[in-house]
């Protein structure tokens, strides 16, 4: 038990938690925007893969890091646009299109990687983002070093979360997006296009998801390898539910989840942890996500028109 306290009081633990949470925050915000507009985007896993790949590839070819982030975002937006067009005006099943987009985006990434680097066995490394210490704030005990000595992409993640909350809840655009997910008929009655709002939301949301993927290659691991995303996208879908479709709660959920993930690595080294097979620890994130879904299963806060295709003029 004392070893648990030691871990919880260590700066490196909390720094790791914030670092692990960063890609989740990007992708969760992205999915949240999509679902608030009424579209379930199951392409999230594949879009994170292509974000990771595009960002890495751009930097590998010589682009500066932020241009890598931008190209990741562009790739994500492209696949988001595809998803949006197929599900909104054409009314195809959001489940099937989502899985299809995940398969397509993942395949595109792996194919492009192999075409670009056919004979490579060890994934080549790029120079990733370095931690950027914020003066004054990083001197706060414990949380200072954990929160304010991270890479710029982590700071961006929290800024994006704040922006998402602001736009969704304090701007007319955000109101329109949320209304498209709750009561599309009311939106049309105001003269706005539900189709445009939904496609726009899915496109922007997918861009954010891809940036989350790019975090993995440009800030965390500095190289691209297969199975890199490893289910994080699906976990973010659970985090959106866990956060009751509110950005603030979703960020807290991501941090909580990341803390558990950081914890399980360290618990493996404690006396008790050494007796359990390591797979048990690796299972924890996925099982926790299922638990989070069960706990939030009172579905009162689901956007009312989530997954309902909108047909103009239909009664």
């Amino acid at each position, binding site marked *: 038990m004392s070893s648990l306290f030691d871990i919880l009081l260590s700066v490196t633990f909390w720094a790791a938690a914030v670092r692990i949470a960063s890609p989740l925050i990007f992708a969760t915000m992205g999915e949240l925007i999509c679902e608030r507009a009424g579209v379930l985007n*199951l392409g999230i896993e594949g879009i994170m893969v292509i974000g990771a790949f595009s960002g890495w590839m751009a930097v590998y070819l010589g682009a500066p890091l932020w241009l890598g982030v931008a190209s990741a975002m562009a790739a994500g937006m492209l696949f988001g646009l*595809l998803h949006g067009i*197929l599900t909104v*005006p*054409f*009314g*195809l*099943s959001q*489940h*099937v*299109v989502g*899985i*299809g*987009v995940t*398969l*397509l985006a*993942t*395949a*595109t990434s*792996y*194919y492009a990687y*192999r*075409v670009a680097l*056919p004979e490579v066995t060890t994934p080549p490394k790029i120079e990733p983002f370095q931690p950027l210490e914020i003066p004054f704030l990083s001197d706060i005990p414990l949380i200072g070093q954990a929160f304010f000595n991270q890479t710029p992409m982590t700071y961006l993640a929290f800024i994006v979360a704040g922006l998402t909350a602001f736009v969704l809840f304090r701007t007319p655009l955000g109101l329109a997006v949320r209304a498209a997910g709750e009561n599309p008929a009311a939106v049309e009655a105001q003269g706005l296009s539900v*189709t445009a709002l939904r496609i726009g939301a899915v496109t922007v949301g997918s861009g954010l998801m891809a940036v989350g993927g790019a975090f993995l290659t440009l800030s965390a691991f500095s190289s691209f390898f297969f199975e890199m995303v*490893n*289910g994080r996208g*699906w*976990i973010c*879908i*659970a985090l959106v*539910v866990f956060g009751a479709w509110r950005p603030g709660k979703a960020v807290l959920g991501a941090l909580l989840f990341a803390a558990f993930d950081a914890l399980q690595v360290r618990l493996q080294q404690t006396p008790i942890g050494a007796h359990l*097979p390591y*797979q*048990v620890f*690796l*299972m924890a994130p*996925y*099982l926790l*996500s*299922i638990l989070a*879904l*069960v706990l939030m*299963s009172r*579905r009162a806060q689901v956007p009312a028109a989530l997954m309902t295709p909108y*047909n*103009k*003029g239909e009664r």
Partner: protein
Amino acid sequence: MRLEPIARPTLARRLGFPALALLGTIAVGSLLALIAGADPLQTFGLIVKGALGSKFALLETLNRATPLIFTGLAVAVAFRAKLWNIGAEAQLYAGAIVTVLLGTGALGAPMVLPVTLAVAMLAGALALLGPVLLKTKLGVDEVVTTLLLNFVMLLFVSYLLEGPMKDPMGMGWPKSAALIKEARLPRIVTGLRLHWGFGVAIIAAVLVWLIDKRTSFGFEMHAVGQNPAAARFAGMPVNRVLVMTALLSGGLAALAGWSEVAGLKGHLSLDLSPGYGYTGIVVAMLALLNPLAVVPSALFVAAVFVGSDSMSRAAGVPTYIADMLLATGLLLMVLALQLSRFKVVRG
């Protein structure tokens, strides 16, 4: 733009749009081949030759199609009832684990194959039962739960293969002990590398089709998928139908694992399934969720994979072209099906 249903779509429309989808997929594939520096016609030719061009290739395609028929059926059955079973991968491994547990000599009985089949189906059914009960009792969406369980199951298999089920003579590789001869599926024709798993798969497809078309349960599965509220109003026990659908779907997916272990490989290792559970979704959608159509669909998908493997060795285009072709084909096909039944109207 808006979609308006067409009362009686013409045959030209019903065949034309899917044909366009096929052409579109070929166009995308050609572009991909060009990007990789290969000639598209030659690439496609090598894929076809690699899948069907020799006895060895043909048998490889049939073998590869066998687990895809099972997972395709599993997904088709589930999706028909709008039960989004993305966990076929976990159910496959559940069946595989059980097949090894019972087949390495623990039960020496001559009836071991039917027993492993039945228990494997039970294991797969149980693997899907959890998510389905969470759906019916608590309203938890089964897409994410089944997906996450795939990862959990894979880790569980890894634990078993490095621990309790490790082959003592495996020289350090994490794999299970080999099945005894009686637990292995025999070859259909002696001398040819095709095992009875394929036969069982065909039988399963026919049986599922019969259930679908000729039993009231099949009717209920359709009704629940089309409109659960109406089905409930008509007095159908919607939740019970969903649970039974899940048991059938999970059981079918588990047979993929059973067949791979008992028929093809003879033991369990972590690379048993290169994603058959996910590919089953493509198979099922291309078959329009029709159980009989799952067989040619699985053969087609298997051919694309086997052919691409072979082509890749010869022409150097990455094997992932197969995944790209199938994902593109899936999306274009669902779009084509929609357009064959709806017309696009301005406003």
